Protein backbone atom coordinates (compact mmCIF):
# COMPACT_ATOMS: atom_id res chain seq x y z
CA UNK A 1 0.00 0.00 0.00
CA UNK A 2 1.24 3.44 -0.94
CA UNK A 3 -0.05 6.91 -0.35
CA UNK A 4 0.26 9.40 -3.18
CA UNK A 5 0.06 13.13 -2.51
CA UNK A 6 -0.03 15.88 -5.09
CA UNK A 7 0.25 19.55 -4.19
CA UNK A 8 -0.09 22.64 -6.34
CA UNK A 9 1.41 25.91 -5.15
CA UNK A 10 1.61 24.53 -1.63
CA UNK A 11 -1.99 23.39 -1.53
CA UNK A 12 -2.95 19.73 -1.44
CA UNK A 13 -5.20 18.92 -4.37
CA UNK A 14 -5.00 15.14 -4.53
CA UNK A 15 -4.35 12.52 -1.86
CA UNK A 16 -4.99 8.84 -2.30
CA UNK A 17 -3.97 5.42 -1.04
CA UNK A 18 -3.23 2.94 -3.79
CA UNK A 19 -3.06 -0.81 -3.39
CA UNK A 20 -0.99 -1.81 -6.35
CA UNK A 21 2.14 -0.24 -7.70
CA UNK A 22 4.07 -1.01 -10.80
CA UNK A 23 7.61 -1.20 -9.46
CA UNK A 24 9.13 -1.92 -12.82
CA UNK A 25 8.98 1.58 -14.17
CA UNK A 26 11.00 3.68 -11.85
CA UNK A 27 10.48 3.22 -8.15
CA UNK A 28 11.81 -0.31 -7.72
CA UNK A 29 14.85 1.12 -6.01
CA UNK A 30 12.65 3.20 -3.69
CA UNK A 31 14.37 6.28 -5.02
CA UNK A 32 11.76 8.00 -7.05
CA UNK A 33 13.89 10.25 -9.17
CA UNK A 34 12.68 12.96 -11.48
CA UNK A 35 14.42 11.41 -14.44
CA UNK A 36 12.60 8.12 -14.04
CA UNK A 37 9.34 7.16 -15.60
CA UNK A 38 6.83 5.97 -13.06
CA UNK A 39 3.37 4.63 -13.56
CA UNK A 40 1.13 3.87 -10.65
CA UNK A 41 -2.13 2.26 -11.43
CA UNK A 42 -4.72 -0.13 -10.13
CA UNK A 43 -3.35 -3.37 -11.49
CA UNK A 44 -4.67 -3.14 -15.03
CA UNK A 45 -2.28 -3.86 -17.85
CA UNK A 46 0.19 -1.07 -18.41
CA UNK A 47 0.01 -1.33 -22.17
CA UNK A 48 -3.70 -1.43 -22.66
CA UNK A 49 -6.41 1.04 -23.41
CA UNK A 50 -7.72 0.88 -19.87
CA UNK A 51 -4.30 1.23 -18.30
CA UNK A 52 -1.78 4.00 -18.30
CA UNK A 53 1.09 3.92 -20.70
CA UNK A 54 4.58 5.25 -20.37
CA UNK A 55 5.22 6.59 -23.86
CA UNK A 56 7.84 9.31 -23.74
CA UNK A 57 11.48 8.87 -22.80
CA UNK A 58 13.00 10.87 -19.98
CA UNK A 59 9.68 12.46 -19.09
CA UNK A 60 7.74 11.33 -16.06
CA UNK A 61 4.31 9.87 -16.38
CA UNK A 62 2.30 9.73 -13.19
CA UNK A 63 -1.08 8.18 -12.85
CA UNK A 64 -3.25 6.99 -10.05
CA UNK A 65 -6.61 5.39 -10.43
CA UNK A 66 -8.99 3.73 -8.06
Amino acid at each position, binding site marked *: *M*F*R*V*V*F*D*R*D*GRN*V*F*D*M*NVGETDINQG*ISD*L*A*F*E*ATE*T*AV*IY*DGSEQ*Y*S*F*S*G*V*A*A*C*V*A*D*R*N*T*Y*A*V*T*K
Partner: protein
Amino acid sequence: MRSSFRMSAMRSSFRIFEGKSGEMIGRVMRTGEEEISKLSFSHNEAVWFRDKIPEDGSKYRAELWVPEEGGEFEAVILDAFNVQGVSFAYDGEFLTTFDLSKYPDLINYCPVYLFDKDGVLADVVGKYSLISHSVTFRGNRSAYFPCLVYITTGGKGFLSVPIIGDQSYAQQLTGSREVTVRYFEEGEDV
Protein backbone atom coordinates in the same frame (compact mmCIF):
# COMPACT_ATOMS: atom_id res chain seq x y z
CA MET B 1 -17.47 26.57 -15.39
CA ARG B 2 -14.37 28.58 -14.69
CA SER B 3 -11.27 28.84 -16.77
CA SER B 4 -8.10 30.84 -17.05
CA PHE B 5 -5.81 31.37 -20.00
CA ARG B 6 -3.16 33.59 -18.54
CA MET B 7 0.44 32.59 -18.03
CA SER B 8 1.31 32.27 -14.37
CA ALA B 9 4.11 30.70 -12.38
CA MET B 10 3.27 27.46 -10.65
CA ARG B 11 4.93 24.84 -8.51
CA SER B 12 3.83 21.26 -8.18
CA SER B 13 4.91 18.54 -5.76
CA PHE B 14 4.28 14.85 -6.24
CA ARG B 15 5.13 12.61 -3.28
CA ILE B 16 4.83 8.91 -2.56
CA PHE B 17 4.75 7.46 0.94
CA GLU B 18 4.99 3.88 2.12
CA GLY B 19 1.52 3.16 3.47
CA LYS B 20 2.31 1.51 6.80
CA SER B 21 5.37 3.40 7.96
CA GLY B 22 4.47 6.73 6.40
CA GLU B 23 8.02 7.03 5.14
CA MET B 24 8.37 9.19 2.05
CA ILE B 25 9.96 7.04 -0.66
CA GLY B 26 9.73 9.41 -3.58
CA ARG B 27 9.30 13.07 -4.34
CA VAL B 28 9.33 15.26 -7.42
CA MET B 29 8.95 19.01 -7.28
CA ARG B 30 8.56 21.03 -10.43
CA THR B 31 8.12 24.65 -11.38
CA GLY B 32 6.61 25.92 -14.57
CA GLU B 33 4.53 28.46 -16.40
CA GLU B 34 0.88 27.57 -16.48
CA GLU B 35 -0.91 28.30 -19.74
CA ILE B 36 -4.32 26.76 -19.27
CA SER B 37 -6.21 26.07 -16.10
CA LYS B 38 -9.73 24.82 -16.32
CA LEU B 39 -11.38 24.00 -13.04
CA SER B 40 -14.27 21.96 -14.30
CA PHE B 41 -15.67 20.45 -17.40
CA SER B 42 -18.72 18.40 -18.11
CA HIS B 43 -19.21 15.17 -19.95
CA ASN B 44 -17.65 15.11 -23.42
CA GLU B 45 -16.49 18.72 -23.30
CA ALA B 46 -12.93 18.78 -24.61
CA VAL B 47 -10.30 21.09 -23.15
CA TRP B 48 -7.83 21.84 -25.93
CA PHE B 49 -4.22 22.40 -24.96
CA ARG B 50 -2.77 23.21 -28.37
CA ASP B 51 -3.17 22.66 -32.10
CA LYS B 52 0.52 22.77 -33.06
CA ILE B 53 3.86 22.14 -31.42
CA PRO B 54 5.19 25.36 -29.86
CA GLU B 55 8.32 26.65 -31.56
CA ASP B 56 9.99 27.70 -28.33
CA GLY B 57 11.60 24.28 -27.78
CA SER B 58 10.17 24.03 -24.28
CA LYS B 59 8.72 20.93 -22.69
CA TYR B 60 5.05 20.85 -21.85
CA ARG B 61 2.93 18.76 -19.53
CA ALA B 62 -0.73 18.21 -18.77
CA GLU B 63 -2.22 17.28 -15.43
CA LEU B 64 -5.74 16.10 -14.77
CA TRP B 65 -7.39 15.00 -11.56
CA VAL B 66 -10.62 14.22 -9.78
CA PRO B 67 -9.77 14.60 -6.10
CA GLU B 68 -12.81 13.23 -4.30
CA GLU B 69 -14.60 9.90 -4.39
CA GLY B 70 -17.83 10.01 -6.33
CA GLY B 71 -19.55 8.66 -9.38
CA GLU B 72 -17.57 6.59 -11.83
CA PHE B 73 -15.84 8.55 -14.54
CA GLU B 74 -13.33 8.07 -17.34
CA ALA B 75 -11.13 10.95 -18.40
CA VAL B 76 -8.56 10.94 -21.15
CA ILE B 77 -5.62 13.04 -22.27
CA LEU B 78 -5.06 12.63 -25.99
CA ASP B 79 -1.75 13.66 -27.58
CA ALA B 80 -2.04 13.45 -31.37
CA PHE B 81 0.46 13.52 -34.22
CA ASN B 82 -0.29 15.40 -37.40
CA VAL B 83 1.14 12.70 -39.66
CA GLN B 84 -0.40 11.21 -42.79
CA GLY B 85 -0.39 7.42 -43.01
CA VAL B 86 0.87 5.52 -46.03
CA SER B 87 -1.07 2.39 -46.97
CA PHE B 88 0.36 -0.45 -48.98
CA ALA B 89 -0.27 -4.10 -49.79
CA TYR B 90 2.00 -6.64 -48.13
CA ASP B 91 1.69 -10.41 -48.18
CA GLY B 92 -1.95 -10.34 -49.15
CA GLU B 93 -3.15 -7.65 -46.75
CA PHE B 94 -3.17 -3.89 -46.46
CA LEU B 95 -0.95 -2.19 -43.92
CA THR B 96 -0.70 1.48 -42.96
CA THR B 97 2.52 3.03 -41.67
CA PHE B 98 2.88 6.37 -39.93
CA ASP B 99 6.34 7.95 -39.86
CA LEU B 100 6.87 9.35 -36.34
CA SER B 101 10.53 10.30 -36.71
CA LYS B 102 9.51 13.91 -36.05
CA TYR B 103 8.86 12.91 -32.41
CA PRO B 104 12.22 11.58 -31.12
CA ASP B 105 11.21 11.08 -27.49
CA LEU B 106 8.89 8.14 -28.05
CA ILE B 107 9.77 4.92 -26.22
CA ASN B 108 10.24 1.70 -28.14
CA TYR B 109 7.02 -0.37 -28.26
CA CYS B 110 4.93 2.39 -26.70
CA PRO B 111 1.25 1.95 -27.59
CA VAL B 112 -0.05 4.19 -30.34
CA TYR B 113 -3.75 4.57 -31.13
CA LEU B 114 -5.72 5.97 -34.04
CA PHE B 115 -8.34 8.67 -34.02
CA ASP B 116 -10.53 10.70 -36.34
CA LYS B 117 -13.32 13.22 -35.84
CA ASP B 118 -15.43 10.53 -34.16
CA GLY B 119 -12.82 9.74 -31.52
CA VAL B 120 -10.27 7.03 -30.78
CA LEU B 121 -10.45 3.53 -32.23
CA ALA B 122 -10.41 1.74 -28.89
CA ASP B 123 -9.65 -1.75 -30.15
CA VAL B 124 -6.84 -0.83 -32.54
CA VAL B 125 -3.38 -0.34 -31.09
CA GLY B 126 0.04 -0.30 -32.69
CA LYS B 127 3.49 -0.52 -31.15
CA TYR B 128 5.99 2.20 -32.00
CA SER B 129 9.28 0.91 -33.37
CA LEU B 130 12.40 2.80 -32.41
CA ILE B 131 14.25 1.07 -35.24
CA SER B 132 12.02 2.38 -38.01
CA HIS B 133 10.72 5.41 -36.05
CA SER B 134 7.25 4.46 -37.17
CA VAL B 135 4.12 2.56 -36.23
CA THR B 136 2.25 0.19 -38.52
CA PHE B 137 -1.39 -0.88 -38.38
CA ARG B 138 -3.25 -3.58 -40.23
CA GLY B 139 -5.72 -2.40 -42.83
CA ASN B 140 -6.05 0.88 -44.66
CA ARG B 141 -5.94 3.39 -41.81
CA SER B 142 -4.80 6.37 -43.86
CA ALA B 143 -7.95 8.31 -42.94
CA TYR B 144 -6.86 8.33 -39.27
CA PHE B 145 -4.17 10.08 -37.29
CA PRO B 146 -1.93 8.40 -34.70
CA CYS B 147 -2.01 9.48 -31.07
CA LEU B 148 -0.99 8.67 -27.52
CA VAL B 149 -3.80 8.10 -25.05
CA TYR B 150 -3.65 8.39 -21.27
CA ILE B 151 -6.68 7.42 -19.22
CA THR B 152 -7.74 7.58 -15.61
CA THR B 153 -10.97 5.92 -14.60
CA GLY B 154 -12.78 5.08 -11.39
CA GLY B 155 -14.14 7.08 -8.47
CA LYS B 156 -11.14 9.41 -8.27
CA GLY B 157 -7.93 9.69 -10.22
CA PHE B 158 -4.86 11.63 -11.21
CA LEU B 159 -2.74 11.93 -14.35
CA SER B 160 0.42 13.89 -15.07
CA VAL B 161 1.83 13.27 -18.51
CA PRO B 162 4.24 14.90 -20.97
CA ILE B 163 2.73 16.48 -24.06
CA ILE B 164 4.76 16.10 -27.26
CA GLY B 165 2.21 15.96 -30.08
CA ASP B 166 0.80 18.55 -32.44
CA GLN B 167 -2.76 18.49 -31.15
CA SER B 168 -3.65 17.72 -27.56
CA TYR B 169 -6.71 17.84 -25.41
CA ALA B 170 -8.41 16.37 -22.34
CA GLN B 171 -11.92 15.01 -22.25
CA GLN B 172 -14.20 13.28 -19.77
CA LEU B 173 -15.54 10.38 -21.81
CA THR B 174 -17.93 8.96 -19.22
CA GLY B 175 -19.38 10.45 -16.08
CA SER B 176 -20.14 14.01 -15.12
CA ARG B 177 -17.54 14.73 -12.49
CA GLU B 178 -15.75 17.99 -11.88
CA VAL B 179 -12.32 17.47 -13.40
CA THR B 180 -9.38 19.80 -12.99
CA VAL B 181 -7.14 20.13 -16.04
CA ARG B 182 -3.91 22.04 -16.30
CA TYR B 183 -1.44 22.46 -19.15
CA PHE B 184 1.86 24.14 -18.54
CA GLU B 185 5.35 24.77 -19.78
CA GLU B 186 7.71 22.78 -17.61
CA GLY B 187 10.38 24.55 -15.64
CA GLU B 188 13.17 22.96 -13.68
CA ASP B 189 12.71 20.01 -11.38
CA VAL B 190 13.72 21.24 -7.93
